[in-house]
């Protein structure tokens, strides 16, 4: 498969290896976080006028889903401000390694080394998402809570255990970063095998050991790599590459997929479906129920959410796999089939989230400048845009951009389904029910967008 190593370009490599550019981006992101926290706690409680809600849930979320993840994979994780205070405290340094590390440095419990906790954290945030999306104070408290949690985890456990195993967004980015045309990999695994000190993992004077607890030579997908670039700095053999590659290259090999990651595909697809229904669907009752935390209506919403993501969609997907079994003795068990076919849903899930986010952005983007112009709701007009009225963008296009994005995801997923079915010897018969499943989910979302 064609790949182009960006680090072969001297200036690109220099930018990646130098800590200054990355630190500048991190500090910029940290400034944004602080603005969000202060504005969220002290500014106007009106969600559409407060930078906390507007910057996080309209600007950042859209940039993450529409641009960062599909095209740059996990690059956001390398500048994300949430774990930085914990990481800097743990290291006792912001730049190069020093002998000032703090914390217990315990290893993350073996039983918890999976995506299940992240899946749970994502669902937990999703259940409270409507109040959080609309109330700046809740947004600020959520982010502050995540920062404090990451500090606590960093003081107890080694490296970026919080990012790897707990962050509710980390699992999301990890899964969909597999579609990105960017990867960090070693050039020659044999070189790594012969390198006895493994400084990419243990660290050296020039950089830290992999914060994500990954051994670069063992990377087969973007899931476990946070693109922090430390291995690029610590490898004395110049064996680490940042490759441009065809999109979705990680999805070609489904044999390595574990159940937690496979389930994540269904979970996120189902969550996108629920979000589209709740936030962009026609039912105001549904939105009110999702917002009324603690009421019977909200409990019904929670029950419906769980039913869809944990029962209905997985059951339908399993049914599709079972119906498509070729009847050959020794063919895949339902569990194996689930794990092998689930990665095929990654493009569709990413497209669903992208379509949802594009719709959300087009509708709400005009809130961004007024909120920035008066970040604390004090009547300021710093950018001269405080009085800018709300105006949805691209209204004349209707839902068609969203439909096109969904159809691209459906086509991409369908192609992967066919490839997996062929690879497993199930042929078109094994692919058809999974296609039908994908088409059903896509149709429901298109119906909501168009209706």
């Amino acid at each position: 498969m064609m790949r182009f190593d960006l680090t072969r370009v001297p200036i690109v490599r220099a930018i990646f290896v130098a800590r200054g550019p990355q630190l500048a981006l991190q500090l910029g992101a940290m400034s944004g976080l602080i603005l969000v926290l202060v504005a969220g706690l002290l500014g106007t409680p009106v969600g559409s006028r407060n930078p906390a809600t507007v910057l996080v849930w309209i600007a950042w979320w859209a940039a993450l889903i529409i641009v960062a993840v599909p095209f740059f994979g996990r690059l956001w994780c390398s500048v994300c401000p949430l774990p930085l205070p914990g990481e800097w405290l743990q290291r006792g340094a912001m730049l190069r390694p020093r002998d000032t590390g703090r914390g217990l440095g315990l290893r993350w419990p073996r039983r918890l080394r999976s995506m299940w906790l992240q899946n749970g954290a994502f669902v937990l945030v999703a259940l409270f998402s409507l109040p959080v999306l609309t109330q700046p104070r809740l947004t600020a408290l959520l982010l502050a809570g995540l920062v404090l949690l990451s500090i606590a985890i960093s003081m107890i456990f080694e490296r970026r255990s919080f990012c790897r195993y707990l962050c509710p967004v980390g699992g999301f980015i990890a899964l969909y970063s597999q579609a990105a045309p960017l990867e960090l990999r070693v050039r020659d695994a044999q070189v790594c095998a012969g390198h006895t000190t493994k400084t990419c993992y243990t660290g050296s004077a020039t950089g830290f050991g992999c914060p994500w607890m990954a051994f670069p030579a063992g990377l087969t997908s973007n899931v476990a790599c946070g693109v922090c670039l430390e291995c690029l700095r610590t490898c004395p053999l110049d064996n680490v590459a940042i490759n441009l590659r065809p999109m979705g290259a990680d999805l070609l090999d489904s044999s390595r997929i574990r159940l937690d990651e496979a389930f994540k595909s269904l979970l996120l697809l189902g969550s996108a479906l629920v979000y589209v229904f709740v936030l962009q669907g026609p039912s105001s009752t549904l939105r009110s129920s999702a917002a009324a935390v603690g009421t019977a209506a909200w409990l019904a919403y929670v029950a419906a959410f769980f039913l869809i993501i944990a029962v209905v969609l997985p059951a339908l997907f399993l049914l599709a796999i079972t119906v498509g079994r070729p009847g050959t003795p020794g063919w895949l068990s339902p569990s194996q089939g689930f794990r092998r076919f689930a990665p095929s849903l990654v493009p569709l899930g990413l497209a669903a989230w992208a379509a949802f986010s594009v719709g959300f952005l087009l509708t709400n983007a005009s809130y961004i400048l007024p909120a920035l112009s008066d970040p604390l709701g004090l009547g300021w007009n710093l950018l001269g845009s405080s009085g800018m009225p709300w105006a949805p963008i691209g209204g004349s296009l209707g839902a068609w951009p969203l439909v096109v994005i969904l159809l691209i995801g459906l086509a991409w997923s369908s192609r992967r389904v066919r490839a997996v079915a062929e690879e497993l010897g199930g042929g078109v018969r094994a692919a058809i029910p999974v296609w039908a499943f994908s088409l059903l989910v896509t149709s429901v979302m298109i119906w909501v967008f168009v209706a």
Partner: protein
Amino acid sequence: MGLRRLTGEHLARLALGLIMLGLPLGLVGAWAVARTAASPTTVHGRVTEDGGWLPGTLRATVGTPLRLRLISDDVQHGFAIGQSDSPAVDLPPGEIVDTTLSFSQSGTYTFYCTRWCGPNHWRMRGVIEVTGGQPAISDAIDPLYLSLGIDIDAPHPALVVPGVRPSAERGEALGTGLPERMRSRQDFVRRSPVEIWQGLRRDPSTTGLSDSQVWDLVAYLWHSTTSIDALSDGQELYAQNCAACHGEDGAGDGVMAPNVAAPVLAGHESGDQPSSPADFTDRSTMLGASSALLQGKILRGGMGTGMPYWGPILTDAQLWALTDYLWTFQFEEAP
């Protein structure tokens, strides 16, 4: 080399310190200064369930402008002073709206929300206590319903009702010479249409007329004792303040009607016993009510029914204009 590394780390920490301490301190400081600096009185508007106007009581002095900074903390609200000619101010969510009020007479003024912000919108009111100067001339005259001794909470069934909708135009066309005492507005507003009809029926001048034609005369009396301007004002007031509960067509089926029947605010012991909004198209009750009774209900509110009290909000002329308009749900106007 060691010195360079140390310097880099120090610079990084300095930058971080500026961001993590300087930025929040700067923002919080600016926020605190802006809040404490000599600035207009800030009034936050929230739906009644979340507190209504905060603060709900303002103080002002005659002759000194009261500068207000109005902010809606949730949905679209409006701000207006009751019984005032000043136009209402719209408050889009989160936007800061500055306005200045001035008072020439002392007294207690009511400010209220002019937008249907929620089921308890009408409860979103506050008061401005104005001191100094001359007190406002008190309207010592009791409301008409009180001077007439009308119990506005008592049932008022119509003992007779017309078979067809009475028409002021048809009534005028009859050309009947009505007794002068019955042509006055004072007479019309004090008696219910049924009482007027009964009076007319007994009058010799209507001997040759059918019951339906006498009802047309009642409609004509209504129309001839009001004015086009009053009906127009009443229509506008009704659309702004009444239609949400009573319905655009007066049938008591407005979009907020289900909420009126719902329990009142949790924790608000208003003593109200909400019931369905009145149906102004119902002949069997409307025609038994006098204009004085209807005006009294609007002015005082339907205590025990969830009907707001409009006395502090509407002027006397507005109250009567609204009352006159209510008869359009019973009578056909003349062209």
